[in-house]
């Protein structure tokens, strides 16, 4: 092909973070393939996520970013390929399996339950019970407590327009709804947090707060996979950037070695990484 090639940065390591990349990856995938009838979703993708890093995944629309993280988090089961968590092969059959392994995900379609209210959604499948026998014997939910803490979580993301915490999420604005989904992942992720375009519907201020949250998660030692079309955001928080293209991996770069323009060029196929497959 005649596309100009860029310097190799496969497995490039961000400066000053060499120690992280000496460790074993927390989550690894090799040669993931998934097809939907005649449509090829993933075409043999590798991915490594190291502990305490923010790995951004960028790519054109339909490049397979969401499909990739769905395969990693048990929402899809790949047709072939291997996934390892802390070096151990894992077979997530459903999202719940990944969750139990400490991987919390915000999917692009948000996965909120329309008719349930904000607190119920935030704590869905993570409910807290009342103290005392009411909780332990009767398994009664601590509705008040969850509602209070849910309100706090959402406000922490800068959403201050919610007038009524018992609104069903189907009546929330697009951004409010996204904030609920993001708040959930932030609150419960214990090892890996995966965010598929978490700021797509968010305002300027709210997006900034989500980026801060991502940094905080990293600082707490968690690993974050961040999918975004917002290049400035990506270059701001990412340690490494996985570039997805036409169902395959076009390469991995770091914000230090490549600038946004180059990133977009690789993503769209205008340039390609030297030696990359």
């Amino acid at each position, binding site marked *: 092909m005649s596309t100009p090639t860029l310097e190799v940065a496969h497995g490039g390591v961000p400066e000053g973070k060499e120690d992280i990349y000496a460790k074993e990856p927390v989550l690894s995938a090799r040669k993931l393939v998934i097809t939907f009838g005649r449509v090829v979703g993933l075409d043999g993708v590798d991915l490594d996520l190291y502990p305490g890093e923010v790995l951004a995944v960028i790519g054109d629309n339909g490049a397979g970013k969401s499909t990739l993280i769905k395969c990693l988090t048990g*929402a899809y089961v790949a047709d072939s390929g291997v996934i390892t968590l802390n070096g151990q092969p894992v077979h997530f059959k459903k999202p*719940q399996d990944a969750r139990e392994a400490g991987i919390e*995900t915000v999917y692009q379609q948000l*996965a*909120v*339950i329309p*008719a349930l209210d904000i607190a119920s959604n935030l704590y*869905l499948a993570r409910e807290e019970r009342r103290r005392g026998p009411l909780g332990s014997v*009767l398994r009664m*939910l601590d509705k008040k407590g969850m509602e209070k803490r849910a309100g706090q979580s959402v406000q922490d993301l800068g959403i201050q327009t919610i007038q009524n915490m018992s609104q069903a999420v189907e009546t929330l604005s697009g951004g409010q709804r996204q904030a609920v989904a993001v708040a959930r992942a932030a609150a419960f992720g214990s090892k890996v947090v995966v965010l598929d375009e978490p700021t797509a519907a968010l305002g300027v201020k709210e997006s900034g707060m989500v980026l801060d949250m991502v940094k905080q998660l990293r600082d707490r030692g968690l690993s974050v996979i961040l999918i975004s079309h917002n290049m400035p955001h990506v270059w701001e928080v990412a340690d490494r950037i996985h570039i997805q293209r036409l169902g395959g991996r076009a390469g991995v770069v770091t914000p230090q070695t490549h600038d946004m323009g180059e990133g977009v060029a690789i993503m769209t196929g205008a340039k390609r990484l030297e030696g990359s497959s």
Partner: protein
Amino acid sequence: MSTEVTSAAAEFARRQQSPLQRVQHQLHGRPWLSPLFLLLVAFVAFFIGSATFLTASSMGILLQQTAVVAALAVGQTIVILTAGIDLSVGAVMVLSMMVMATLAKDGGMPGILALAVGVLLATAAGALNGLLVTRINLPPFIVTLGTLSVFTAIALLYSGGESIQADHLPRLLNFLGEGFGIGDFRLTWGIIVVILIYAVMGFVLSQTAWGRYVYAVGDDPESARLSGVPSKRILLAVYTVAGLIYGIAAWILIGRAGAATPNAFPDANLASITAVVIGGTSLFGGRGRLVGTLIGALIVQTLQFGLSQMGVDQQWRVLATGILVIVAVAVDQWIRKVKA
């Protein structure tokens, strides 16, 4: 933002409202009041139309007539909340009833054991529905349509089509038909059991995580799955619990009918689904309240009882019931629709 802007909405809220609108407004804020309101209207109408309707003894009879379908409708409600449907309600109940009675009569089993086996069998039948729905991913309609035939046939083959009279049965199996009176107002233990079922399931649905999962799975199964709700386990549990409830309904029915008959309640399906839907639960799952089902069952039964007390003949009663069901739900819709 400033006071001037705020006032636009505030002004709108302060607009003139007629008394009717105010009632509507009140009911709108408390949607579960609306079917209750309908029930009240029906009571007043029948009170005017018939001298024998609003008497203590009639009210007792009305409750007794509602008991079985109200019990079945609890199971139907949780199934429908998960966006399913259960066509095998009646068949499971009848099968359970015939097994209880046959074991106690022919097998000479003590009442408590026969009851336990019968209820367990119903629970297992529900679990079978649940397994077919969750393991083989079959639509609930098909599964329960199939098991409807299967359970009906087994009940007939097992019982040989014979009914078993109460006097051949141990007292325990008939016990729910007995009761106590407050003056002419007679309640059976069956009614008490139904109330207990509603209380327990109402608590579970609204106060526990399990209840939330039921709603979540019904409202948006894919989102529920992605959120980590153990959907399959919940579905299986729902069908199993429903079966358990049908088993208890079988016990109530023996007491009520004073016999176990293989043809006991052929329109159990339609009657139970009707109670659920009139009670405001969506057939698409995820939306509805159990108390609505109770009121729904009462509304249907009240219409039928009221019309019969007015001496309306069967065919006209069928006609009137059809119209009244539509009118009742239309009024309900009107109340809910209006802007607060």
